[in-house]
């Protein structure tokens, strides 16, 4: 069952799917976020773009929750034998911080909308997430600043993460990148 189970040679199909879906979503959400901030009040996307941004965000929360459960339930491929202790630690730290920043993005994004008690309404009104934390003065501004700063930090780390993968592939010529892109063999 290569789709569900990872082995030491490569990540499972499911792990790959979640990883690349997240990568695509994070980059897309960053671009969408920057673009929607510049829309004028009379732009036809002025209301729709933030709605889409919120819905994709909540979908990513769900995917990430599933991903974390999967990560802890199913064994992950270990570090490649050729990786030095420093590389192992660095990779571990970057991966953990990326997860942490994703969490900060989820919470801060949610707070921008719900800071004054409004619900976060997504998926065209099919899901309404209530406000659970409000009453702090100008919380929406603080949450907005965190959301913006952490978005840039997250993209910076993602670039670092990608560069490290390319370094493993082209300079070290090891399997680090391949085991996340190669087709699983049944």
């Amino acid at each position, binding site marked *: 069952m290569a789709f569900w189970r990872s082995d030491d040679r490569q990540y499972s199909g499911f792990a790959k799917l979640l990883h690349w879906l997240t990568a695509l979503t994070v980059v897309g959400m960053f671009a969408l976020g920057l673009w929607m901030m510049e829309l004028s009040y009379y732009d036809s996307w002025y209301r729709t773009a933030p709605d889409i941004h919120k819905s994709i965000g909540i979908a990513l929360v769900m995917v990430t929750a599933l991903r974390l459960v999967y990560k802890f339930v199913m064994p992950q491929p270990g570090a490649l034998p050729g990786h030095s202790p420093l590389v192992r630690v660095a990779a571990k730290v970057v991966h953990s911080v990326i997860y942490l920043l994703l969490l900060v993005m989820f919470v801060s994004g949610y707070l*921008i909308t719900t*800071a004054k008690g409004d619900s976060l309404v997504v998926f065209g009104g099919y899901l309404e997430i209530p406000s659970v934390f409000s009453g702090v003065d100008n919380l*929406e501004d603080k949450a907005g600043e965190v959301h913006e700063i952490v978005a840039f930090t997250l993209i910076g780390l993602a670039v670092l993460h990608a560069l490290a993968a390319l370094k493993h592939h082209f300079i070290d010529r090891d399997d680090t990148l391949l085991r996340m892109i190669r087709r699983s063999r049944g």
Partner: protein
Amino acid sequence: MKKRIAGVMAAVVLSTAAHVQAADYAIDKQGAHAFVQFRVQHLGYSWLYGRFNNFDGTFTFDEKDPAKNKVEVTIDVTSIDSNHAERDKHLRSEDFLNTAKFPKATFVSTSYKPTGEDTAELTGDLTLHGVTKPVTIEVEHIGMGDDPWGGYRAGFEGRATIKPAEWGIGMAKLGPASEEVELFLTVEGIRKGK
């Protein structure tokens, strides 16, 4: 017991006598008997209402000599509240009030001209968004007198219409119907001292 009643009566008489002279008042911020509100048209289809939650100020009111009447109010612009977090965040941003750079607004009166028995034109300098410009507020004196708790109060309601663009606030992006903002200033002051 009789003595105490006499004392209270004397105090009432004295305070009644005192209020005909010029008196300084502090806006009853703590008891929230004062409001700084605004409304602006949305697309020309409806009115949007909002308010500033934090402000403070004082005024002088002289029934005999209106020339002595004056008002000074400081508004915490960051406390803007239109009952919608996303909109308030946008209103505070550089697109509108830029509260990070200009957190305070002030109004300092320069003249008070009675226009009727209980009405007047209050002119003063409004500093907002780092720009100071004169505005004229139509004032109505609602009432004044002893309160039930040993104090003395006077209340006014002011209305003014401003074009925020004159203070450098970019309202044009909201469309032609939203150029003007109406301000409603409701203050009840508690007389200072005796």
